[in-house]
């Protein structure tokens, strides 16, 4: 499997050979998509980790253990449902059926149906939707 991560690390970790460690110890392929690393300032890597599910999980766990802040890059919809007034404006643009009015005219959100098209972000007059790019790993 393949997963995309953002790895952020403090200046003290710049001297560590993170990538080669991942390749040798956990048998994952690392594709570096973006790197912003400098001595004394810390850095950020955007990487694809390719390998067995368990290997990726162990890699993330090892990185976390040595102090790298790891977040998975996934496009997903974040909905602040507590503030929703169930006006229904978002249902006008939701073709996947993730956002629907129930029989009591309350808005229901079924994340499993969401295709992350993002149209609801601008359709909500209370601005309760956000497209998130990262989540803690």
């Amino acid at each position: 499997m393949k997963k995309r991560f953002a790895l952020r690390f403090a200046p003290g970790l710049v001297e560590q050979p993170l990538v080669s460690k991942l390749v040798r110890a956990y048998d994952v392929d690392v594709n570096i998509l973006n790197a912003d690393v400098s001595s004394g300032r810390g850095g950020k890597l955007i990487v694809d980790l390719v390998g067995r599910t368990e290997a990726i999980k162990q890699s993330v766990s090892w990185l976390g253990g040595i102090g790298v802040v790891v977040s998975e890059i996934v496009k997903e919809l974040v909905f602040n449902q507590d503030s929703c007034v169930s006006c229904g404006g978002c249902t006008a643009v939701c073709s996947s059926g993730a956002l629907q009015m129930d029989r009591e005219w309350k808005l229901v959100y079924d994340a499993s149906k969401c295709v992350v098209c993002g149209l609801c972000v601008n359709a909500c007059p209370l601005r309760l939707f956000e497209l998130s790019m990262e989540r803690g790993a």
Partner: protein
Amino acid sequence: MAKTIAQINEKIKAGSVVVVTAEEFTAMARTKEPGQLAQEVDVVTTATFGPMCSSGAVINFGHWNPGIRMEDITLNDVPVYQGLAAVDGYIGATAESKYDCQYGGAHVIEDLIAGKELRLHARGKGTDCYPTKEIDTYINKDVVNEFYLFDPRNAYQNYGAATNSTSKIKYTYMGCLLPSFGNVTYSTSGELSPLLNDPYLRTIGLGTRIFLGGTQGYVVWNGTQFNTAKERNSHGIPLGGGATLAVIGDAKEMSTEFIRAAYYEKYGVSMFVGLGIPIPVLDDDMAGRLAISNSEIETYVFDYGVDGHPAVGKVNYAELQSGKIELNGKKVKTAPLSSLSVARDIADTLCGWIKDGRFLLSEPVARFPMDSSVEPLRQRRAGQDASEGAER
């Protein structure tokens, strides 16, 4: 036998009043005649919770020492109308912050109701009696003298539904309209909506006590763009627009559950206003009006993709609320813009207030005109006759 509002109020005080919501009344009317319902039910509560742009609030900030004649006022960078004496201001719901178009007057009002601190900045030219030229401070609803909602146009009787024939998405005050008639939006609470249950405003007039934003408020005038000349269907329902109400209420007592700021993409700021009106079941005629059901309430569907928004269909609210209507021979998805679930909460809350004897009905001080129409703004020369040069 006909009842009077005074008799109904006696029943409220005695705790024997029978009050139901307009949806419950309509359901009862499926099996009972208006005459029987007029005997059994005393009051019907109606409600709506939708975006109402023509809303705002009056604030008296209190006098600074030494005094300032505020001539340029902002609250959280949103301009406040300043042309009202030294320290009175009016914050319109659709006013926008100088720096963030998604934050406006409605947000200021909601934040004040929520008890938040807002930054007040004001300038004056400095006069002998008001020498201070600039102030920069914070206010909340407890430190200002008055803070009351005054909405020039709320509770539209009916409103046209919206669609879009063009090949591009349209962002409007009627929400996001998908291309090629991709959806239809509508914005009333149908058979629960106040002015659809009293279509000729027999019981709603100047001074009518109402639910406004979570507290008691009052109808203080007909709303702007008040139109009684609108085409009506056989049930007396205007097909779009129609009557409106100007309302007032103490915003310090309101709740953000029933007043919420909104931002419509590429349109601007608006405000959801929670409004409920109790309607007395005075006689068979009122019972018949209150029995109105969604299938009897019709409106036109307008094309917001074309200048002038021509009508492209006519539908009823039973169809709109079913989630799909037929337009040009095709099924089109429908979506509401006003919250029926919050409107139901309001109607239920009002039922509770009346049952508990906390809310008495009021006789209108005066009824609103029934010969009012709405005219467009035209280019004209000073002194030119209004009908001259009229295009339509």
